[in-house]
């Protein structure tokens, strides 16, 4: 059996591939990556530990908080519950890819304006989730926004401000 080989951390691009690592191509925030991934690495750990994309947060590692929400082929999912290797050929958008200083996504701007966060730890997940919500198109009312944002816990309790921010962008209809 060869699957016991573990590479050193941060060597997803290492040339001497551990035998258990598998090739996968993922487009992350528009950039194609050819990666060698151990099958037991989650998308979340790949992003955070190997690609330096720490905007995506680990809040529970079990799909119970939503902090790790990213867009996978345009749809919001919990990245902690996806084996990265299974996503060969997929496109992933993280909070870093939604927008950056100077070209903020409307949701990012609305979150700042409405003070829709405090500690900021659930925030990237909330924003990615809201982007997914808007793309899905099943929410119109505040009540629907609240229900459909319920997969993102916020222990600081910024919920009312988050709802304000998401509704503003939803109503303006200018989310990219």
């Amino acid at each position, binding site marked *: 059996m060869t699957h016991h080989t573990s590479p050193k951390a941060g060597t997803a691009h290492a040339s001497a591939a551990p035998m258990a690592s598998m090739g996968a191509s993922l487009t992350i925030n528009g950039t194609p990556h050819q990666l060698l991934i151990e099958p037991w690495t989650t998308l979340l750990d790949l992003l955070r530990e190997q690609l330096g994309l720490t905007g995506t947060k680990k809040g529970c590692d079990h799909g119970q*908080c939503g902090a790790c929400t990213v867009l996978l082929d345009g749809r919001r999912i919990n990245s902690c519950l996806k084996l990265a290797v299974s996503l060969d050929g997929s496109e992933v958008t993280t909070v870093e890819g939604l927008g950056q200083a100077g070209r903020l996504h409307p949701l990012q701007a609305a979150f700042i304006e409405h003070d829709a966060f405090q500690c900021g730890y659930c925030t990237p997940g909330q924003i990615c989730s809201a982007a997914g919500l808007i793309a899905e198109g099943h929410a119109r009312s505040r009540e629907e926004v*609240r*229900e459909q944002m319920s997969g993102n816990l916020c222990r600081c309790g910024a919920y009312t401000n988050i709802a304000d921010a998401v509704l503003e962008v939803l109503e303006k209809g200018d989310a990219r």
Partner: protein
Amino acid sequence: MDTVMKVGIGTPLSRVDGLEKVTGRAKYAAEYEVPDMLHGVAVPSAIARGRIAAIDDRAARQVPGVVEVLTHENRPREAWLDRSWKDELKIPGEPFRALGDDRVLFAGQPVALVLAESFEAARHAASLLDIRYEEEAHNIDFQVSLAEKFEPSKKRSSFHPPKNRGDAEAAFAEAPLKLEGEYHLATEHHNPMEMHATTLHWHGDGKITVYDKTQGPQGVQAYLASAFGFSKSDVRVVNAYVGGAFGSGLRPQWQVQLATLAAKHMQRSVRVVMTRQQMFTHVHRPECRMSVRLGADVEGRLTSVICDATTSTSRFEDNMEDIVIWGMMNYASPNAAGSYSIAPRDTYTSADMRAPGAATGMTLFEIAMDEMAYKAGVDPLEFRLLNYSEVDAMNGTPFTSKALREAYREGAARFGWDRRSPEPRSMREGRELVGWGVATGMWDAMFSKTSASAKLSANGHLEVACATSDIGTGTYTVLTLVAADTLGLPPEQITARLGDSSLPTAPVEGGSWAAASSGAAVQLACQSVAKKLLRAADKVEGRPLNGAHSLDDVVFEGGRMLLKSDPTRSVGIVQAMQAAELPVIEEEETASGGISGMVSQMLKSRNTHSAIFCEVRVDEELGQVRVTRIVNAVAAGRIINPKTARSQILGGVVMGMGMALHEETLADRKLGRWMNHNLAEYHVPAHADVEQIDVIFVDEPDPEVTPLGVKGVGEIGIIGTAAAIANAIFHATGKRIRSLPITIDKLID
């Protein structure tokens, strides 16, 4: 003169750290990249109490990538004396030392740390340890532990013993109206969204940089120096961003112990991140039982207040909270008495969680107050006003300010309290019973000696710095506003630096004292800069500010100093520095209460107050509760940033909703173990649970309470909120639930 509105204290400013947070650039403890770093995964104890008999780590060591398995048997040596392990909370007892010896003190205690080159390898290997234990009898059940309750002789320094007055027992015996009830709050865990983590950078020259999830970087620095034998100057602790804490970061938690042990042992950088399950193996809000006896005259005036409470602690430390004093302080009963004890369980030590003591004691007391109002046949709000105390009724001291009456009035008006139908079960809409409840909140307005620096560069950029922490509290923004206010600079020209032990001295962030304390320090430092600027202005040709002798003679606005007596005469800040050939002005100052502050501390009570109004809708048949509306009117002195302060109150209210309806850590008595140790089964409020929350800050000018007149808003939002909800549920259903949380089972007959 430009007419741009001055940004300063009182301006609602968006979070200055907002951009970093919404773009994912803000780095938290587990997110710093350091070279050649090992990942540590802790192995939890399977038993609640006993000894480790043997650890077989052979299988774990065979996992490729694993470099070491650290246990009590091979850990590096560290400080021996308990006092070397004391942290800023200074809870009496023997502080927990991870891997200290073979003792198991609580279920889930870290008994080994697997170190590997990758997180995945460490995680897997951690599951392969074969550990044999010698188990001993244990108890996690609070009710059982009450048999062992005691009043510790050595008390936590923060503890305020109740001061009895009059003869409460006699007054109670004689009172025509009596209420006697036993109230209960379940164990709660903080569960900030960010799990506790430490990334320790081992520089190799004896120095370490520790990126730690903490509320006090200098506290951790001192702790690591004292417990692990570092020179303090070799330890730098950074917590620039903290993903919530609510008190869980007041004490150094075991992940920083393990990371430091491992780094010393391996002479390498190490990261240790707790799992969500492991977030249930350290600090928590103690479980509480409080019996309340209230006596009143026939009009409803309280004649006796008696509170006796017990909270849970561990077997190795005696944690105490201020549980019973709140009702004794807040209401004008001539007779009052309180007693308080703690009961040990085989868990980690309970400790401070958002508004420790008051969130429990005031909340439970306010449920009793509601009951008494019904007994007296008085509207619950009226009842509180009837028993209103202008002074601190327990200590007999006046308040520096107390605008609680205004909070009641403004909150009631916003809520529409006057439209309430007094009878329980008298308001309904369809299948739902509607209930309106009210409660009072009270917290301390504290101030701690704090230092800050201000550094003004010749390009007009100002950096203020202080070693306090922003755990979501808005401190970056608050300090920016204070600096903007003092030096008349736009916020874009100001950078606030916090969360780094190398910055000017600050105490651990907590207790709602950070804004008042670090704000005052920043103001002082900026004022020192201002004085130098004024002197520099003398060098400007023509001396436009001639005649300005002190800061009182000038106004700082729009990057300029203006003569008060003739605002047409002004000097630009940059202009003054250039004229005086000053490339930079840097000042550090310390804010302390001073003599007058100390005198005032003795003579006056300093508190925040709040009035919470709540509407619930309860399905009559099925017991499902919806909290549809909350108004929280807060009297907290001067509000530096209404925008972030409002968010603090919102957050407190939401956590109060959790306390009222959701949060309860469930134990298995046989195993001595928390069972719902995850976010799927330990419920905190979700989006769907939170509808409308209105926050009112009532006007409460108070120049005496702290230098800036600030009282702090971090805790007050949670206090009383759960009582307002419980009281509303009673009003809706006629069911008085004295045990929180009010889960659906308690509303099903």
